[in-house]
């Protein structure tokens, strides 16, 4: 069976066969030492896995088959995700897969699709995101990094920050200011830039997990061809909002909460926590928070699968998912007693569990992608239509 034929067969497979197939593939191909990695892995650690998935045709499960994706329906996508999380498969530098790719499929020109999508699939282009700036966090539209037109090029100057895995990327997609007059949202352009362009400097930032996961990126008279604009000059805010939509459905997916829960379960088994009725009550509450999120996530994914679009209401998934994940890690820490305060993990027989590390690693989830407070503002205004 070639992978090309398989593309159309996944959705008609019965669930158990599909689950077993995916699981077996992970067991055979995913490196043992990378299971349940406590940190977001760099390309030198997880790059080979990216290429294995690429070769298998499994890199982009949610992309339509016509663009080289698996074209999974909502149900199969959830199984795919669930199997990966349960096995502890690490996240690749996936901004091309989850963000730029879907965005180009929706808003890119034919030339852009033809150029960029195959290179994402082949692992030739690894992406990072240039949105936030030191002075523009929640108020993203106030961003100041400028792109000034000079013939067929822009000259870009400015400073981006919180750029995840910038050290591993060779491409950045970013928002730049192309007009300083009028409404701040209307002077923003969406731009794709190769990171080896002269004038770009990347400086890693050490986060609370003592890991250089994100970075600052400086732009000093960087020359970028005008053809690298997606969606037209000064239309960047619309495009960014569409992309934030993609990001939010991704952040809203239950995978992180499921992963945290599976670590809690391993730990609970290894130290006999299930004998404690108080623990069981708290564990079950969280389990149901996740099961119920799962039901909600499927409901939203069905909309996408019907060809509909998801609006601001998707913020509810991000809020529920990230806050549940944090509560799971907090129970993990509490149940670990003194181990809740040490760097190292607890050996469970099913890999190490690091309660303190999990608590720390889950902190940014309620901050990035639009803080949960901003998400609540969006829901209050756009869904509940509360007065201002």
């Amino acid at each position: 069976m070639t992978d090309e034929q398989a593309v159309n067969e996944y959705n008609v497979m019965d669930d158990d066969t599909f689950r077993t197939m995916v699981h077996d593939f992970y067991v055979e191909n995913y490196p043992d030492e990378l299971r349940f990695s406590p940190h977001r892995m760099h390309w030198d650690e997880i790059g080979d896995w990216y290429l294995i998935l690429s070769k298998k045709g499994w890199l982009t499960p949610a992309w339509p088959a016509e663009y080289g994706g698996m074209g999974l329906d909502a149900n199969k996508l959830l199984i795919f995700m669930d199997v990966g999380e349960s096995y502890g498969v690490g996240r690749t530098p996936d901004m091309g897969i989850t963000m730029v790719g879907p965005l180009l499929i929706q808003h890119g020109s034919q030339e852009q699709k033809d150029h960029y999508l195959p290179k994402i699939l082949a692992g030739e282009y690894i992406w990072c995101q240039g949105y936030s700036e030191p002075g523009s966090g929640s108020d993203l539209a106030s961003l100041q990094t400028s792109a000034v037109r000079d013939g067929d090029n822009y000259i870009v100057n400015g400073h981006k920050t919180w750029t995840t895995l910038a050290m591993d990327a060779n491409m950045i997609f970013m928002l730049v200011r192309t007009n300083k007059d009028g409404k701040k949202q209307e002077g923003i352009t969406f731009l794709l830039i190769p990171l080896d362009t002269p004038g770009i400097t990347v400086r890693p930032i050490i986060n609370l997990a003592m890991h250089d996961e994100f970075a600052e990126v400086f732009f000093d008279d960087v020359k970028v061809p005008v053809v690298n604009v997606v969606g037209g000059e000064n239309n960047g805010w619309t495009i960014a909002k569409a992309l934030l939509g993609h990001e939010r459905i991704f952040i809203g997916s239950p995978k992180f909460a499921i992963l945290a829960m599976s670590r809690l379960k391993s730990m609970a088994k290894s130290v006999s926590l299930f004998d404690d009725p108080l623990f069981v009550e708290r564990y079950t509450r969280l389990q149901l928070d996740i099961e119920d999120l799962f039901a909600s996530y499927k409901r939203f994914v069905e909309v996408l699968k019907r060809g509909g679009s998801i609006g601001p209401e998707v913020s509810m998934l991000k809020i529920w998912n990230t806050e549940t994940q944090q509560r799971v890690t907090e129970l993990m820490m509490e149940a670990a007693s003194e181990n809740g305060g040490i760097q190292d993990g607890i050996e469970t027989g099913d890999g190490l569990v690091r309660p303190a590390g999990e608590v720390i690693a889950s902190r940014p989830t309620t901050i990035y992608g639009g803080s949960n407070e901003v998400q609540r503002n969006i829901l209050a205004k756009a869904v509940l239509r509360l007065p201002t």
Partner: protein
Amino acid sequence: MEDISLQSRIDVLSEQQVLIQDSAVAFIAQDEELKKTRDNRFVQPGFDQQTWKEMAELGWLGFLIPEQYGGIGLGFDDLHTVLIQLGKGLVPAPFVATAVIAASVLVNGDNEAVKKDRLPALVAGEWKPALAWQEARGSMCVKAEQVKVVDGKLSGRKIFVPDAGGADDFIVSAASAEGTELYLVNKDAAGLSIDYEQRVDGGFYGQLSFDRVAVGDKVAGIALAEQVLAAALDTGRVAASVELLGVMTRALEITVDYTAQRVQFDKPIGSFQALQHKMVDLFILSEISRSVVLQTIGLFDSQTSAEGRAAAASQVKARCSDAALQITKSAIQLHGGIGYTDEANIGLYLKKAMYLASWLGNASAHRARYAELTL
């Protein structure tokens, strides 16, 4: 009142579901001020007989009853649109207890003559059975122990029988020497006495005491009775959860509406971020509940094992009970002083939620059962 639920934004209803929903929306619109709900509070039988007749005329009482017994034999898929509206409108009628739970016991029992004779009368609204199964507070056990049947005579006590005052007959589970059986018992049978407990929502629970009461027709024998009961109660838990979804949805609508109107410090209080974030959290709870409801009714309409149904029923009852209580309690807070008056309708939603959340196992009990079934 504006619909703020995500149903119209992201869910797809079939043409038939839309028709049924429209008629249910029109039905509750007749009593938007909740006059009937108020008039029937704290007076026997605790619900409105006229409303029951109208529901029969609309065909709703036969939703889950097959056509061969006079029903319309549709699934939860269609029924849930009605149940949501019954919750939104605080409709004073024992729909879940009678048209869902008692109906399910009769349909799944093995007495063909009883089905042919009684079910068409239930569908027509002319006969109301009530299920008497529970023997201990907080129990979900379907095995009869305390109420015994010896030589065709029942003795013992059943508790928490909803709306017993309006019932014509009871379906009673009883322990024979061989095991649990289900019998019809006439409300006026000699030796049966009923004590009533007033519920916070204005309805009543009955406590049934049997002193050598002659049984009527057998509804299910030992081979089936416990399994029939378990299935009916889990179906009832799902239905009560859907009604709770309606209760919480309308309570939130009323509250959002109120905070947009109520002016303090020269601004609508709904413009304050502290209140907005609180209402957003309530909204999320209501939509999480709706997602679980939609998933569960799909599961109940398809082939699923009894254990799978039980776990799903516990999942949805736990979520909807918790969410409805949290939303209605917060709704009182967001209304301020007026929310604590009997005059304001928002309090009626809290009390309905308190009844439905406690009935058939509350959230903690269902989380515990879910843990037992899945851990």
